């Protein structure tokens, strides 16, 4: 008798069963949905229909039998998968795993054609032979590369999705401290922006525009199979073997929930089996110079400006304070920016050894980076040790690790550029004793010394272990079945100690202030991957199943203390403080996933991929935690078809298409809870604890989902002399997770909500070509351009949402506000305008709705903040061992407000400096900038500019020394190079830099670097 189960118990039982089964395989779960069944049918039909179609082409009238083998001419290894065709007929065959083939020919005088992607095509007249040996020469073509894809690798030729790839050689071409820099301008659809300059620059990566505008518009970064958080500057570019960018839904769907913004896969170097130990030393050193720094006014200019603004240029003596007047009288002034900057420098040393011994192969690398930026005090040191090991313990068991130990030292506080920009030049940086003044302007003590950061004690170090480990089991019972366990952890601890002594404004007013904080991140991942790879005749199958779990814990604890007895013990005296302000935060998130993927390849011609991933994330409420992300893709290597006629011209032609979905769970943990904020009061001089509502509970929050359709074409022309890729795509995002403004009468301004749908459409082109080879000189070009258009399709409200600045049909992120419409020149113009009380010289605001008055309804669009086009163009000339290459990068179609142009930033009474402007005057009727007074721009209308630019990102001259020289020092290879970065920029932008977020911040650097790489 079976006891009846309650519904709840049955559900519980199902969960338990599923979980235990999924620990090793997740098939049943994935196959449970009807959607899966239909996908399954699709795979089945592909499996059956494709070969059936081809069988029809097999010849019937046999006359002679020819057998042979195809070998790699470099090492004599057999090459499987080579298509053998009888010239002039439709007969064909394919080499087997051992490179052998059999083919039926009409006569032994026929000619065979052997071709395989990655090898030069060979024509072999039989000349009566019935057995032949064909040797193929590998062409250095991307399509023969093995590229990393999610949870595995694939041959480039087998890939069905849109995957960009950057090899170690490309990365090594330019010396970079940060891997992200290596991506700049290199791939279509990948927009790398320097959002903050400095010794450790801040960079953002956007793949195919912006689908969502939550905090996580950034792609998912996977390093050696594990999710990576934080700055990529904690990875040594020298250690990287390849960088892949997954762009379309098919390739990203296997990362499901976090892949909606694309995925970047970083693979580090490993030892190669069989080779001798290889020792590489590389080093570079260079200097950094400010690329562009708009100049604030000098002392004399400032005095005149202040006088003009406050007294109409008449009564200058009355407007200056004593300190200012003294400087004017003495003819002195302070160049605050000059004092805050320096010539930067950077150097890096890297030593690595790789090789193999017995069953173990290894890559061990260590490096030291020391960068000192152009801003005084902006220093970054990185010590890094990497050990990558693979040990084959048994035939069926391999263990391995990729472990990165990092010690980063960010100590030192960069000078405050914003303060230096604004600081009155007619004040004094130093006192009579040569010490920094506490208050440079004694009449206006609001302003501390902008250079005071150099007096602040700032210790800031991070220790990090990032370790990805695996065990690979070749299951002995089933041929082609492997099981892989990945277990990894990322443990980082950042410790900051700050002290503001009494020689700083902060320290002076608080009797010394100390701040210590420790943040600890612990991320772990466990993945079970079952893989089955088999080739049956022309059919190749590659099945991957995954069950994984991830956890993240981030804890920050800090202590601020005020009122410290002395400045000597800096922050090491918390016990003696008068006032204590401790704080702590803990955030945790979890993710559980199952995934299955099947790749099918028929004869290197027909390719199909089916993927399904199910993710469950802790950040959503019960009932909304899980989501399914299916994808399907197909590829057709047209040029591998026997009937393909244009082989001589277009040696490679491949069509790809994919459709699928990926998700975004980029909300902060606890977003769905009604959180309260500590907001205490005071009672009899003691704290009275208080809490106020700061966020609203949300029971319905769901995953954001992006469905994407991609179609791509890969081609090679004239034996890969020109190689290219074209992709077009559309991405539809629904349930967009946005921080939405709600009616403020709720007492809370924002709520994370699923607010609507967006669409991205775009096109990408990548071209590489060998343009010319004349007398030993090779000229190669790499070009990429991409276009992306983003628009909002629908919103929660039926129409536009002006409060959030979301407008149907417009990009998600637009500039919106009052628009500058020139300058009023005379009374007649004013009388005819919407600003009747204006004066000549005042800013004219665009009366956008033409109703004759200026109000909130006149706010309007002023361009998109996302680029329309991005492009990269690299040219290189090689002659013998010498290579000269230059990279241009272009970003077009961005509009931004240039804050340096603001006309009211000097504050009433002129307390701040600004850059010189051409003001409207009764004599100078400019139409671009208002009169120099406090009322000429009543609504502080910003000044928008086109932030498009073309930049000479990188120029490198490298010399690979000839063997004759290298052998003298016993080296295999020796390369020396010189590089310049950011040498030239063309832009209409008048601020600090069109790329940087803040225009009063550390400026972008021109960098000159010289380096060498030697391999033994």
């Amino acid at each position, binding site marked *: 008798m079976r006891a009846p189960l309650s519904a709840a118990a049955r559900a519980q039982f199902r969960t338990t069963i599923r979980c235990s089964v999924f620990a090793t395989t997740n098939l049943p779960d994935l196959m449970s949905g009807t959607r899966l069944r239909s996908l399954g049918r699709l795979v089945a039909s592909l499996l059956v229909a494709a070969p059936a179609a081809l069988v029809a082409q097999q010849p019937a009238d046999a006359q002679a039998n020819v057998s042979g083998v195809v070998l790699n001419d470099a090492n004599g290894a057999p090459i499987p998968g080579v298509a053998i065709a009888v010239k002039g007929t439709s007969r064909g065959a394919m080499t087997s795993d051992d490179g052998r083939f059999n083919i039926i020919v009409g006569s032994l005088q026929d000619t065979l054609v052997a071709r395989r992607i990655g090898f030069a095509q060979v024509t072999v007249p039989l000349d009566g032979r019935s057995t032949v040996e064909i040797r193929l020469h590998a062409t250095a073509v991307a399509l023969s590369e093995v590229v990393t894809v999610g949870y595995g690798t694939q041959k480039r030729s087998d890939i069905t999705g849109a995957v960009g790839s950057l090899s170690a050689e490309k990365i090594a071409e330019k010396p970079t401290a940060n891997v992200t820099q290596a991506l700049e301008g290199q791939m279509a659809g990948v927009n790398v922006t320097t959002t903050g300059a400095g010794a450790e620059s801040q960079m953002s990566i956007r793949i195919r525009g912006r689908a969502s505008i939550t905090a996580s518009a950034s792609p998912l970064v996977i390093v050696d199979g594990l999710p990576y958080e934080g700055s990529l500057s904690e990875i040594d570019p020298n250690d990287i073997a390849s960088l892949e960018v997954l762009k379309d839904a098919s390739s990203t769907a296997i990362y499901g929930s976090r892949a909606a913004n694309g995925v970047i896969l970083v693979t580090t170097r490993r030892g190669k089996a069989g080779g001798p130990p290889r020792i590489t030393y590389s080093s570079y050193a260079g200097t950094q110079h400010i690329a562009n720094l708009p100049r604030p006014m000098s002392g004399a200019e400032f005095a005149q400006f202040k006088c003009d603004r406050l007294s109409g240029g008449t009564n200058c003596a009355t407007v200056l304070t004593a300190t200012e007047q003294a400087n004017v009288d003495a003819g002195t002034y302070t160049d605050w920016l000059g004092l805050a900057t320096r010539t930067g420098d950077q150097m890096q040393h890297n030593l690595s050894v790789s090789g193999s011994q017995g069953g173990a192969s290894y890559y061990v690398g260590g490096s030291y980076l020391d960068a000192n930026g152009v801003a005084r005090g902006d220093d970054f040191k990185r010590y890094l040790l990497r050990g990558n090991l693979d040990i084959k313990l*048994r035939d069926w068991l391999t263990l391995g690790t990729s472990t990165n130990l990092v010690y980063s030292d960010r100590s030192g506080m960069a000078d405050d550029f914003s303060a230096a920009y604004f600081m009155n030049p007619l004040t004094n940086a130093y006192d009579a004793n040569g010490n920094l003044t506490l208050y440079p302007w004694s009449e206006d003590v609001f302003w501390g010394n902008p250079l005071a950061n150099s007096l602040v004690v700032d210790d800031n170090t991070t220790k990090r272990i990032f370790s990805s480990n695996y065990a690979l089991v070749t299951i002995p019972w089933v041929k082609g079945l492997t099981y892989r366990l990945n277990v990894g952890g990322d443990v980082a601890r950042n410790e900051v100690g700050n002290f503001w002594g009494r020689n700083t404004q902060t320290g002076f007013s608080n009797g010394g202030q100390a701040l210590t904080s420790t943040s600890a991140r612990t991320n772990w991942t466990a993945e079970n991957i079952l893989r089955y790879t088999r080739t049956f005749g022309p059919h190749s199958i590659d099945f991957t199943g995954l069950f994984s779990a991830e956890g993240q814990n981030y804890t920050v604890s800090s202590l601020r203390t005020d009122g410290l007895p002395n400045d000597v013990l800096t922050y090491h005296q918390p016990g003696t403080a008068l006032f204590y302000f401790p704080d702590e935060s803990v955030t945790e998130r979890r993710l559980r996933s199952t995934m299955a993927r099947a790749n099918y390849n028929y004869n290197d011609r027909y390719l199909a991929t089916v993927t399904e991933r199910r993710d469950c994330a*802790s950040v959503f409420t019960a009932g909304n935690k899980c989501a399914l992300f299916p994808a399907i893709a197909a590829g057709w290597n047209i040029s591998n078809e026997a009937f393909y006629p244009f082989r001589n011209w277009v040696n490679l032609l491949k069509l790809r298409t994919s459709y699928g979905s990926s998700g975004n769970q980029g909300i902060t943990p606890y977003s769905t*809870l009604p959180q309260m904020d500590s907001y205490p009061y005071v009672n009899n001089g003691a704290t009275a604890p208080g809490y106020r509502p700061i966020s609203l*509970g949300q*029971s319905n929050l769901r995953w954001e989902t992006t469905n994407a359709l991609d179609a791509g074409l890969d081609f090679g022309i004239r034996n890969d002399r020109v190689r290219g890729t074209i992709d077009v795509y559309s991405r539809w995002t629904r349930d967009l997770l946005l921080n939405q403004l709600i009616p403020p009468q709720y007492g809370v301004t924002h*709520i994370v909500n699923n607010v609507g749908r967006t669409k991205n459409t775009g096109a990408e082109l990548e071209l590489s070509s060998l343009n010319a080879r004349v007398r030993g000189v090779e000229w190669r070009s790499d070009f990429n351009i991409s276009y992306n258009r983003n628009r909002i399709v629908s919103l929660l409200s039926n129409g536009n949402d002006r409060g959030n600045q979301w407008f149907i049909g417009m990009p998600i992120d637009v500039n919106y506000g009052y628009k500058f419409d020139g300058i009023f020149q005379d009374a007649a113009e004013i009388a005819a305008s919407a600003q009747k009380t204006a004066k000549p010289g005042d800013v004219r605001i665009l009366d956008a709705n033409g109703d004759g008055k200026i109000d909130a309804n006149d706010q309007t669009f002023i361009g998109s903040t996302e680029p329309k086009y991005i492009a990269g163009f690299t040219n290189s000339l090689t002659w013998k061992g010498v290579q000269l290459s230059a990279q241009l990068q272009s970003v077009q179609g961005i509009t931004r407000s240039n804050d340096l142009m603001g006309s009211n930033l000097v504050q*009433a009474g002129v307390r701040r400096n600004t850059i010189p402007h051409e003001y409207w005057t009764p004599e100078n009727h400019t139409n671009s900038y208002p009169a120099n007074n406090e009322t000429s721009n009543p609504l502080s209308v910003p000044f928008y500019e086109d932030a498009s630019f073309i930049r000479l990102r990188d120029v490198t001259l490298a010399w690979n020394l000839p063997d004759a020289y290298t052998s003298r020092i016993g080296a295999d290879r020796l390369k020396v190079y010189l590089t310049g970065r950011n040498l030239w920029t063309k832009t209409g932008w008048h601020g600090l830099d069109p790329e940087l977020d803040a225009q009063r911040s550390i400026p972008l650097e021109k960098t000159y670097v010289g380096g060498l790489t030697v391999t033994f």
Partner: protein
Amino acid sequence: MINMRLNGRVLVVLAIPLLAGIAACGKDFLVEDPKNIITAENLYTNLAGFDAGLNAIYAQVRREHQGRSGTNELFQEPFILGTDIGYANYVSTTERIFNEWGIRNNSTADVYNDLWLWLYQIINASNTIVGRAENPAIAWSATDKNRVLGEARLLRAWAYRHLVYSFGPVPLMLEESTGDNIRYDWQRTPVAEIRAQMEQDLLFAEANLPLVPPNDGRVGKAVAEHYLAELYLAMGDPVKADTMASRVINSGVYSLVTARYGVKRSQPGVPFMDQFENGNVDRSQGNTEVLWAFLYAKGIPGGGASIMRRYWANRYYNNKGVAVSEENGGRGIGRMTPTRWSLGIYEPTDDRGSYFAIRKFYLYNDSLNLPAGKKLGDTLKTRILARQKINDALWPTTRKWDYTDPTDINGDEGYKDEPYLRLADTYLLLAEAQLKEGRPDLAAPTINIVRARSNASAITAADVTLDFILDERAREFMGEEERRETLIRTGTLLPRIRAYNDTASKTIVERDTIFPIPQSVIDANTGRVMEQNPGY
């Protein structure tokens, strides 16, 4: 071929992840368990939790004397600038609105958005308490519960009072906000309906709050009665206003300060100003007049920081030879300044117009920058010009907010407690009620109680007019009173600005007598057009 030992090992290796997988399958693996986050669910479970909720509201209310952004943008500004008693001497973006009105006074100005949000934050916090107090699982006495409800409802009424005076009809929110009850089709509730709710809330508070609160930072019965008196005046019911104001005056607990007391009693001074001295503000420090004070403490969480002195003190240090000092009143930035008219309405004998209440001179104290002919300790007199001007470092100002942290002369923050509501105010509300009741004969003696304390001459019933009472309020509450709201209540804003504020008189129009509904409110109301106030 495949040996059994190998198979055994493979099985063992395969079993490890199986176990790991099961760990991740635990029922709670995906359940969020915040470790250091308070939510409404785990806070409002006992009396202490509700008191913590109230403390946060008091800390919010105190922001009226704090900055909207750090030590900038004093929340009090919109209630005083651009009235008959206040103008902005040194201006930034917000202050220009109230000096110049015109195009600057529009719905996108930050000040209105901030004002709206601040008051509704208080309302939502109060609503949360009011709603959750009905949870039957809470074990507390009826007295405790009603006291909590009384405070929460009084503070809610306080916020609606500001809202109605500032914006007119506004959405009436009485329930806790949650992510699941968000609407985008709000309408403005008529003022009468909001006032009816305020009356209920204040009457409940009056019935359930203790006569004297546990400290001056919290509200008691008298505060409820005071605001009821004002509400009834606004509603045109002077009889009830009279009753309520009289209850406060006759409570036997509060009385005007009429004699010197406290920390500076042995130094020259006047009784009127003693109640503003650091160390004198609280009832426990001898102040009999304070109904409600804002409390501060330096260097502790919740201690807060006032910027009243920063905003009210002038930039006298722009005068050569005069540097920031405690004696000179501490460091101010002169954003808020008494109008020319309001400085000229004192009899010579009136303590409220004396040097102790209004800055008449500064001391030369900067030896390095002394002007020719001056020596340390000489005085630099302030003066009142024929017309107000801006950027005037010699314009007089009130001394009520003078305070300097002795360890930080240049500091922006103030830590002395501040009177927020005083019994003198209740007296003048009573006088107004008496006048409205047609009894100027009763109003005159009421006003004289306030005047006598400051040595102003006695008036007679014939002197009592609404304008006189408003003038008296200006004399008594310079820098304290939410003046704009008084003038709106009495319907006198426009004429009095035109008559008494040189800076704003030319540009103020009828439209400016009510603030625009913030554009953020209109824009977020995507489901229905929310009506803007006329003229904007």
